[in-house]
């Protein structure tokens, strides 16, 4: 058999800019047998909550789920390391038959005895939703007994996709927040940053320079105590919208904290975001200081970026990442590097985000939602991409196709945010796109490789 067939149900999830009128289909369940790159509800919840450093993250379910997500993010902590453990009730066949409630209670007791955490998240996995353990009641009872927070996270794998998990995580966080009656001026929360490789700390240093206090990060390097004070902030800024959009909306509704979207990926977005923050706070002093910071850092960084940019002329990028907002930033960031994005897709992008993507990319760019390896292969090849941005599962595929690759996943160990991040990104693009290794491919036609 020659060229593999495309699954017709997938057609609506793929569009080409300029050629189709109807909007892309998104935010739907994955189609069976299509080898989706998406994870599950539990995973969505876990990745959002996991960076909370002093919490015990207890997975109520069979062992695999906990095993595959142990220390899942490269999130850094300035304090407790409790979050880096994988705790599981390790359900067995008899628990599936007779229920796992008792085991869960005992597990919480044991964790409290051993670690005295102030906060325990209890995640439900697929089978817990089916066997019907009453997570809410068990957590409530445990909280009373131990006088700590025990928060159930409703993340059974089959109740939706990763987005449902984000929402479950936000619901869990909302249970922690408490109105304090205090409102601090020039104090902001940063939503949707997980302090991968210290990224939240980088942004914090910029804000400090502008005279703004970073109150709480959701959830990078945050602790249960810190989280409770989140209601004191005067503004929320939100980076990863996919995971925290719902939380930002709720905080506005419940605690009257307005929010704005920011992105610290690339020079332009970073500068724009710093300006927007100062403007949203109505703080002229901060705005002035932001300009100083932007001018200084740009002067330092721009020549480095320009040096790399010269090497990338004519190269084409493909993007397949988790969320829509990151995808949007990447289009702009590649433009700063002199590269055009020719294929772009996300796992959980939303309608508005796809509209923005569509407005940003050039005619002929392929846009996909919930893509699979066969589609990624087909479109990267067809569009002549030289490089892919993606996560761990996409990497070997890119390499097998002889295409350069950038990790933009959650276990990376170098920051991609802010000015430091912009340089790291450019250097990483260079290190992969311009590696001599491609010269040895059987039919290499990359005579222009440096």
């Amino acid at each position, binding site marked *: 058999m020659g060229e*593999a067939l495309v*699954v017709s149900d997938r057609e609506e999830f793929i569009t080409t800019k300029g050629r189709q009128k109807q909007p892309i289909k998104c935010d739907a369940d*994955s*189609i*069976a*047998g*299509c*080898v989706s*790159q*998406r*994870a*599950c*509800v539990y*995973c969505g919840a876990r990745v959002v909550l996991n960076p909370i450093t002093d919490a015990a993250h*207890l997975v109520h379910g*069979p*062992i*695999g*789920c906990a*095993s*595959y*997500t*142990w220390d899942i993010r490269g999130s850094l902590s300035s304090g407790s390391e409790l979050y880096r453990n*994988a*705790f*599981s*009730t390790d*359900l*067995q*066949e008899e*628990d*599936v038959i007779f229920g796992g409630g008792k*085991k869960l209670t005992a*597990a919480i007791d*044991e*964790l409290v005895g051993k670690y005295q955490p102030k906060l325990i998240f209890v995640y439900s996995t*697929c*089978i817990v*939703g*089916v*066997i019907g353990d009453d997570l809410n009641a068990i957590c409530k009872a445990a909280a009373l007994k131990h006088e700590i927070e025990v928060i159930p996270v409703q993340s059974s*794998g*089959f*109740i*939706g*996709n990763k987005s449902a998990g984000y929402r479950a995580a936000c619901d869990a966080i909302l249970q922690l927040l408490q109105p304090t009656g205090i409102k601090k001026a020039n104090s902001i929360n940063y939503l949707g940053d997980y302090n991968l490789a210290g990224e939240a700390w980088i942004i914090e240093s910029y804000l400090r320079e502008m005279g703004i206090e970073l109150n709480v990060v959701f959830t990078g390097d945050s602790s249960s105590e810190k989280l409770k004070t989140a209601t004191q902030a005067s503004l929320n800024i939100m980076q990863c919208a996919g995971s925290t959009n719902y939380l930002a909306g709720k905080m506005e509704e419940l605690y009257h904290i307005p929010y704005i979207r920011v992105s610290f990926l690339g020079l332009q977005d970073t500068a724009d975001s710093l300006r927007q923050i100062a403007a949203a706070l109505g703080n002229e002093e901060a705005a002035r200081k932001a300009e100083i910071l932007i001018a200084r850092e740009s002067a330092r960084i721009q020549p480095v970026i320009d040096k790399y940019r010269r090497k990338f002329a004519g190269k084409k990028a493909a993007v397949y990442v988790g969320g829509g907002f990151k995808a949007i930033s990447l289009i702009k960031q590649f433009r700063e590097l002199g590269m055009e994005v020719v294929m772009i897709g996300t796992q959980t992008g939303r309608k508005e985000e796809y509209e923005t993507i569509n407005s940003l990319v050039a005619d002929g760019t392929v846009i996909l939602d919930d893509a699979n*390896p*066969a589609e990624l*292969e087909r479109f990267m090849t067809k569009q002549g991409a030289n490089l892919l941005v993606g996560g*761990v*599962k996409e*990497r*070997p*595929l890119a390499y*097998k*196709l*002889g295409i350069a690759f950038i990790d933009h996943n959650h276990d990376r160990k170098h920051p991609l945010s802010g000015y430091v991040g912009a340089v790291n990104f450019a250097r990483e693009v260079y290190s992969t796109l311009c590696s001599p290794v491609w010269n040895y*491919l*059987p*039919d290499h036609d990359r005579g222009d490789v440096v």
Partner: protein
Amino acid sequence: MKEKKAACRNVNENPCNMCMPMGGILALKGIENTMVVLHGSQGCSTYMRRHISEHFNEPVDVGSSSLNEKGTIYGGEKNLKQALDNVRKVYNPGVIGILTTCLAETIGEDIGRFAEEYLQEKNGEEIFLVTAPTPGYGGTQAEGYFFTARRILTCLTKKSEKHNKINLIVSNISPADIREIKRILNLMEIKYTLFPDFSDTMDRPFQRPYRKMTPEGTKIEDIRKMSGAPATLQLGMTVEDALSPGKYLAETFGVPLYNLPLPIGLENTDRFMEVLQEVTGKGLPDSLQQERGRLLDGMIDSHKYNFLGRAVLFGEPELVYALTRTCLENGIHPVVVATGSRTAKLAELLQPYIEAAPEPVQILSGTDFAVIRKYGEAAEANVAIGDSTGRYLEEKAGIPLIRIGFPILDRMGGHRLLSVGYTGTMAFLDRVTNTLLDSKLKPYRSRMYDTFYRKAT
């Protein structure tokens, strides 16, 4: 020897194992032109793909029936059949392996019946289906691997004429190890069916154009005829009969079974060679005798350094068993021997060897890293031997980790590590000895200074 702890604790803290379908995928990846579909919710397959991809640095496509709420309530038959249709459209596989996950098992899905019906609906179309119920809570990846391998035989092997190809069934070892075993068999001019064989499917040369399906792996034709082999050699001492592919061939087709340890270590490799000679009547070629001699020579060279070793060994039972014996024959002291699998076999099998050991050996099954670390620290372990999941022993307890087994996620080339045969044993032993030397040499000057000079002045 003590069996304890696991039972009286209520939390698994930092798991030392993964779940059953993971092993099932690996076994199926060793068959030519095979695609796998996991019946359950989307996450399981994505997680397993991620782990496998990262270990092997290969694309791993695994379909999922992507069960949602509706499928969970009303049954997932429709989803599964749709998944089969879709993977056939895109991948055109010769075999599809259908594995269940926790969810599918809990709601009581009968994949055997679904598969039969599916075949009837598509009557006449050339497609082989292998089904294996592998609930995540039914065992670890080690059990999932052997059980699925057994199911592959149950579904595909037919009664066949007698022939002279021996069956060789391997546990979850690296592609480099599988290749080394094939090299040995080729040197001895032995005809064989090695099963399952993911040495080329999971460690493929760079080629253009890219192929989604891999024609390498054990041939269906050969699997069909494993019933007519003169003997089965199975590297699966720790495998329960109910999960054992070799046992299935013995019971169903009368193929004599030799259950052997993985050929890591001098004695284990000798045993492997002996049985090969016994079964085939072939002699040991000169070159292999030379390799044996070189290993022995190397063992002598490094024996005093190895005596410094106090090892924590952990991972899949089969590997741990072979490695423990390798440590014992080299004077490395295995202070903790641990597996996440709930098995009594490991302890039973090791019993005669550890009775003779100079110090007590703590054997743990169904355990986790909280327990392993506790015993390891108490016994003043100075080296850990196992996969990447033991990285905390290194990070938090300062015990250097020698990576071997699956998964290796934080180093390159885990799948290229050679550890079997005389040559592989030497390579493994060098890795251990050099780690021990490193721990001795690095702090040597400052330690002596602090202990003796400072004290004296």
